């Protein structure tokens, strides 16, 4: 396991202790040794972008050689979840339907990282179209958890979490629609952040559920996550849903003490089904915050029990609309011999191109939006979503941040939940409410089980108040040392 930080890489390159090229080669060496079948077969990468990475590394090395000031991510090896497009690298979204697609442009998040000096190593495995909680829905095969190779890394950003945990990348990009950054971060023992809805541009993100999808970073520590956010955040003319609210000083905020902050502890998140070892670890983290001068306050988020059904109506409805663009006409895979009609070609392409879970969600979503059912399902779900959001707004009138579990259990074994989609959906019980409310959240490591599996704790913050969330996360991290 590598514990290299963004600052260590940048400083080592600036002081000429190493070069960006050597750092990139070292990480590619680790990937070659352990990501494939010859090593641990973690399978976090779906494609490597070595040419682009080494060109960028050479550019950083030339700057360092001339003694120029280096940008904040100079030479930092970064991986990109394969739902974000990168010019010249295949984009699959973990699906067969995009097999062979070479996108002609870069996602804004990708562009921003590279402009800040990051070396883009390649594209990371994920559940098909980011639909899943274990990475077992990838059409290209599962990812193994580097901390326990018989277990899942979580999902859908399983490759992004595993790559950081395995030391293949110093930081990665993931996406989170209902927990897809925070849950795998917890399973793999790394930091994962869900920025506020609108904080990071989604231009170049292959859409799953547009009112929920967000782009965010994985890192080994809270400070690196803050650095990544400072690069990613901000208005983008190419994404009308990106916010023009001023970007905070996320790294500077880490210097502020947490003394006096009010921390909400929601009773609904500590009920039945929570693993006792996780409960104990989170209570310990809360004790640590108290010792650091925070004031703990029990709060209630009364509509929490409706979050999962609400989420699975809204997310599937939006997915059924978004995924209609995959029809064998403009990109990726087209089925057929050329002798069938257009509608036969659509049907055949989608039948052969999509996997079982994606089809299930398209069907569910189409049903929820269909005439006669729209009011009962989609409209009702949107109304409940407002109630869930109001729960958080009321809580944040009293407290500065909320601390809760992020997963009910530690990482489970491969295959343990693949037969029962409802069991898999229940994985999201502590994550989907923040997704629906649009607030920011993050998962921070807070110990391990007796069996050595990582445990994560969730910190949630007000809309666009990543600074306070990061301060609390840092205090939890400091309490672990």
């Amino acid at each position, binding site marked *: 396991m590598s514990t290299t930080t963004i600052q260590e890489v940048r400083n080592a390159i600036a002081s000429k202790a190493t070069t960006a090229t050597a750092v990139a080669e070292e990480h590619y060496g680790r990937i070659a040794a352990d990501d494939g079948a010859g090593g641990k077969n973690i399978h976090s990468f779906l494609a490597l972008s070595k040419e682009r990475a080494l060109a960028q590394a050479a550019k950083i090395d030339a700057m360092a050689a001339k003694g120029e000031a280096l940008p904040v991510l100079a030479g930092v090896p970064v991986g990109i979840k394969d739902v974000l497009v990168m010019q010249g690298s295949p984009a699959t979204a973990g699906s067969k339907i995009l097999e062979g*697609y*070479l*996108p*002609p*442009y870069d996602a804004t998040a990708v562009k921003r990282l590279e402009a800040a000096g990051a070396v883009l190593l390649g594209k990371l495995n994920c559940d098909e179209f980011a639909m899943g909680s274990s990475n077992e829905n990838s059409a290209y095969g599962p990812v193994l958890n580097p901390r326990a190779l018989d277990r899942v890394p979580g999902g859908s950003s399983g490759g992004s979490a595993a790559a950081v945990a395995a030391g293949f990348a110093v930081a990665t990009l993931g996406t989170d629609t209902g927990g897809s950054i925070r849950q795998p971060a917890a399973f793999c023992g790394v930091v994962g952040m869900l920025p506020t809805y609108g904080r990071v541009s989604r231009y170049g993100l292959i859409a799953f559920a547009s009112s929920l999808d967000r782009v965010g970073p994985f890192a080994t520590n809270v400070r690196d996550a803050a650095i990544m956010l400072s690069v990613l955040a901000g208005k983008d*003319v190419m994404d009308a849903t990106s916010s*023009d609210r001023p970007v905070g000083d996320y790294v500077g905020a880490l210097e502020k003490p947490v003394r006096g902050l009010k921390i909400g502890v929601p009773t609904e998140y500590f009920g039945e089904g929570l693993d006792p070892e996780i409960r104990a670890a989170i209570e310990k983290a809360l004790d640590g915050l108290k010792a650091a001068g925070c004031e703990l306050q029990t709060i209630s988020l009364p509509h929490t029990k409706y979050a999962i059904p609400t989420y699975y109506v809204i997310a599937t409805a939006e997915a059924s609309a978004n995924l209609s663009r995959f029809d*064998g*006409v*403009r*990109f*990726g*895979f*087209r089925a*057929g011999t*050329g*002798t*069938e*009609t*257009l*509608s*036969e*070609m659509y049907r055949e392409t989608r039948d052969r191109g999509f996997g079982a879970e994606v089809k299930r969600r398209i069907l569910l979503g189409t049903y929820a939006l269909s005439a006669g059912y729209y009011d009962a399902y989609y409209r009702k779900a949107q109304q409940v979503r407002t109630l869930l959001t109001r729960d958080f707004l009321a809580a944040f009138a009293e407290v500065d941040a909320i601390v809760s579990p992020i997963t009910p259990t530690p990482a489970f074994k491969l295959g343990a939940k693949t037969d029962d989609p409802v069991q898999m959906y229940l994985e999201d019980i502590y994550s989907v409410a923040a997704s629906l409310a649009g607030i920011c959240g993050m998962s921070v490591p807070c110990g391990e089980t007796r069996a050595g599996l990582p445990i994560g704790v969730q910190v949630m913050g007000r809309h666009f108040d990543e600074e306070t969330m990061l301060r609390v996360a840092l205090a939890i991290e400091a309490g672990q040392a």
Partner: protein
Amino acid sequence: MAQVGEMLGAEPELMGASLRADAVRPSLDRAAVMAAAPETDGRFFKVPKVIER
């Protein structure tokens, strides 16, 4: 032809604070987009026969 900005200019309360200029901006290169399609003549996406008997 009237521009969107001019049309809304008469009703300033409808002018969103961040309404962008109604100007042509560069878009993706057509050849690059077409190159990613399963079937194309370089100008258009080609699809199988639409009308069924």
